[in-house]
């Protein structure tokens, strides 16, 4: 499994996203321009220029026509995937971090950071089919969370929104009323900042990664803790294989704690765990800094990782991978 190195960013990667067909890979980084790549051979197709700050996350619509990005320049932008044209800008008074389209792509949830005097929020915007109808108005604003929200995603049938972040708590919110329905258990749940959250292909369960050096698998409807995967380093990125019962977990020591020259020192490995047995299967090394982003191709036959080192590494699995016995 020789990885394809994709060098298109000058700053650390922040987020990776495949489109539904699995032929395009979108990458966000702390430089201001998200890129789109061919997911098969790693050729760069284009760049979305227009942001004026680090881009924290993105999402692509089901038909791969539109891209939404959230940035530290206090905006979220809609783009035309094919032409790279900027379609619309949502302005906020704090950096926008997590973005996601809802089922049907008619809605998007965008989170804003606690910045200056602003409390962190998760806001629901209507995404109009016709650009002329597009407005900046929020349908719903979720507040009441202390500490940054690192990820907010839609639950089944757009009825709920799930948030996770600095306060180490996962919450499920009602999208009709904006009320908090469920909170993760303090004992069972994460002990430190949740850095990442990734849903299974059918949106039935999701995986969270935390600086407490663990990743946890939860039922999306009941918020029941199903599995815990323990690693040796802070977790920055997680994803669930859509094909096999595997999960991938990446991270590494904070750059400030890494004084060693040896790249093994920080454990910048993407670790694979068996989803059900919670046992480690193997690891993929290569990055020279912590892994900040991970994504499985929707076909489950390749995955990519984005690191603090500014590289995206695209890995196609060998046939051995599909025959792993544990």
């Amino acid at each position, binding site marked *: 499994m020789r990885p394809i190195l994709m060098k298109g960013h000058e700053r650390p990667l922040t987020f990776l996203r495949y489109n539904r067909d699995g032929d395009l890979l979108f990458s966000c980084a702390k430089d201001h321009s998200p890129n789109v790549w061919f997911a098969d051979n790693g050729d760069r197709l284009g760049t979305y220029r227009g942001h004026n700050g680090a881009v924290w996350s993105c999402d692509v619509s089901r038909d791969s026509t539109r891209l939404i990005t959230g940035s530290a320049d206090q905006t979220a932008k809609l783009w035309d995937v094919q032409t790279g044209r900027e379609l619309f800008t949502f302005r906020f008074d704090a950096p926008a971090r997590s973005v996601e389209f809802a089922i049907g792509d008619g809605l998007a949830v965008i989170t804003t950071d606690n910045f200056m005097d602003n409390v962190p929020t998760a806001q629901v915007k209507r995404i109009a089919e016709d650009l002329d109808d597009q407005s900046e108005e929020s349908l719903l604003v979720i507040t009441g969370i202390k500490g940054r929200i690192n990820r907010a995603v839609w639950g*089944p*049938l757009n009825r709920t929104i799930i948030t996770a972040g600095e306060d180490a708590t996962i919450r499920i919110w009602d999208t009709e009323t904006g009320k908090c329905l469920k909170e993760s258990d303090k004992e069972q749940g994460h002990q430190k900042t949740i850095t990442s959250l990734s849903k299974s292909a059918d949106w039935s369960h999701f995986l969270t990664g935390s600086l407490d050096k663990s990743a946890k698998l939860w039922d999306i409807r009941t918020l029941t803790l199903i599995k815990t995967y323990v690693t040796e380093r802070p977790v920055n990125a997680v994803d669930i294989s859509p094909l096999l019962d595997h999960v991938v977990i990446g991270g590494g020591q904070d750059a400030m*704690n890494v004084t060693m020259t040896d790249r093994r020192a920080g454990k910048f490995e993407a670790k694979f765990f068996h989803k059900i047995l919670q046992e480690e299967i193997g690891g993929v090394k290569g990055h020279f800094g912590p892994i900040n982003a991970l994504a499985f191709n929707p076909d489950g036959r390749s995955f990519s990782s984005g690191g603090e080192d500014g590289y995206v590494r695209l890995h196609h699995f060998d046939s051995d991978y599909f025959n792993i016995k544990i």
Partner: protein
Amino acid sequence: MALEISMEGIEARARELGVDLSTVDLDSITLPAGEDFGIPSDDEDFLRDDDPMELEMGFANIVVVDNLPVVPPEKFEKLENVIRKIYSQIGAIKEGGLWMPVNPETKKTYGYCFVEYNTPQEAELAREKTNGYKLDKSHIFAVNMFDDFDKYMKVPDEWMPAEIKPYTPGENLQKWLADEKARDQFVIRAGTFTEVYWNDARQKMPELVFQKQYWTDSFIQWSPLGTYLATVHRQGSQVWGGDDKFERLMRFAHPQVKLIDFSPGEKYLVTYSSHEPSNPRDTHRVVLNIFDVRTGKVMRDFKGSADEFSASGNISVSGVSWPIFRWGGGKDDKYFARLGKNVISVYETETFSLLDKKSLKVENVVDFCWSPTDPIIALFVPELGGGNQPARVSLVQIPGKEELRQKNLFSVSDCKMYWQNSGEYLAVQVDRYTKTKKSTYTGFELFRIKERDIPIEVLELDNKNDKIIAFAWEPKGHRFAVIHGDGPKPDISFYSMRTANNISRVSKLTTLKSKQANALYWSPGGRFIVFAGLKGFNGQLEFYNVDELETMATGEHFMATDIMWDPTGRYLASAVTSVHEMENGFQIWSFSGKQLYKVSKDHFYQFLWRPRPPSLLTPEKEEEISKNLRKYSKKYEQEDQDAFNQLSEQERKRRKQLQEDWEGWVAKWKQLHEEERPYRMELRDGEASDDEEEYDTKEVEVEEVVDVHEEEVPFELDQE
């Protein structure tokens, strides 16, 4: 005790007072601040009764000076000045800390005064130094600690027979040795927890024996035979042991104790503290106590300035070479000795006084060490007078103090002594200057202690200029290993004190070239050795069989900082302790280099195998067992197999269970997914496809002009 108040008593009292108990919410009662109504708190704060830290807040730093002249008011000031002068020499007197009471009727002093210092240590020193001080013929100071007055007042005037306590059988302190599965214990300290585990190699994980938070204030230590676990606190040291519950067996009060050391036979415990002087120009004051471990009695204490106790600084632990007292004479704890200026002071433990009432005089001695088994001291005196007087190593027999053997050495720059653990051999590593004095080279002087006249043999390495990185004797054996060489990949050589046809001749067994190693760890049983590349070498481990001269396995515990064999030589632990934040934890290996299991712990400070006392079997019996090992091991092999089968059976069951649980979840999700399908379709504007590949593939050909470029291409006919 609060618990002894019976409910009936309370009810009776309540009736007496006319209180209806059922209307009283007992939990709402709070006691006034500072009042406990004689009800002791449940939170047992150990060592409270003799907690000198608490006394420091009280009167421990006050001395009472008696037998002063009784003076009228005119002379009051003069006397006060005299006293102030005497007592401020010892330490700074607190502001307003000198108080001489005056009789209000006669206006004369009472003939005593109080002096208050900043620390109890200074007060103690003042008492020591000025008690019996002659101011003049009729006034001889009687100085006492203020706190002692209480104690003396309590002494009853009439003699009372001592109360004889009934005998209570103690716990079996050796219980861990009787483990059915013959496992070994180890203790770890991580975060605020101290935990004792069985090393259960069969189950491939440790089994918790006992765990306690905040068990120690600084570190933990096993006694040399494994009977006690010592913890160190501000107020002193404590030892724990017994059955699996690790009850406190004894405590040893020693305020601000820093270092502790057991005697090899674990009869005595030496504690050390050093106190900052109130006058920064003074040196630190050092206090050493030697306790009897079983009775808790102070057998002898030593006090003095730090200078007196650091005559030489070879192994420096926070400014002192520890242990200050080195125990000699094997497991009987008969002697202990300390290095002084031009002397070695040898004490014996019968009376805890100097042997023959005087120290062993050795001009300029810088280092000494005891034979591990016999009362023999090896000492080293460096070169003197610019090389006119040679350096020397000599062996001195105790208690006779006669020199058994001496060897003069020339142009020596440094010298290290290594005893073989059964006291048969002594290796002296000598660094000598070359002729130009610009560099040094190393050789060994090997002493055969058990042979007649103690023959000495000189051994030089093949390459004399190699630096010696590590040296280690084979425990109970006749071989030793040396890491030598310059540069990042040194060589490792093995030597034997015997050759095939002459048992008193040293010979080289082999040299292994270019090894990534900087430390040697012999198995306690000998025969096997691990070369480790710690710290700079990232934790490379090589397991080597010295009988066969072959490598059994290599391994790596990335960034390992410590390597420890278990006392039986069956397992090896490698650990990354909290010298840095990363990778903290430990791994257990088999003696042959198979990694058995691994545990990660944040803030991992200590890993210590519990030592075992020496075997009680005679050498003949041991010989017999090793001859018939097959017979004995059969039983254990069967147990191993059973455990293994059981483990795999359990594992199979566990996996099956997990798989079934998971399938339960999946089935539920599938059902919900189906139920939600119509709603989902609605959300997608009636688009039928849910997640299946139902969309049509359209082939669209798009031609895009990327760039138009015009270029003149010169056409040359004669290019061919």
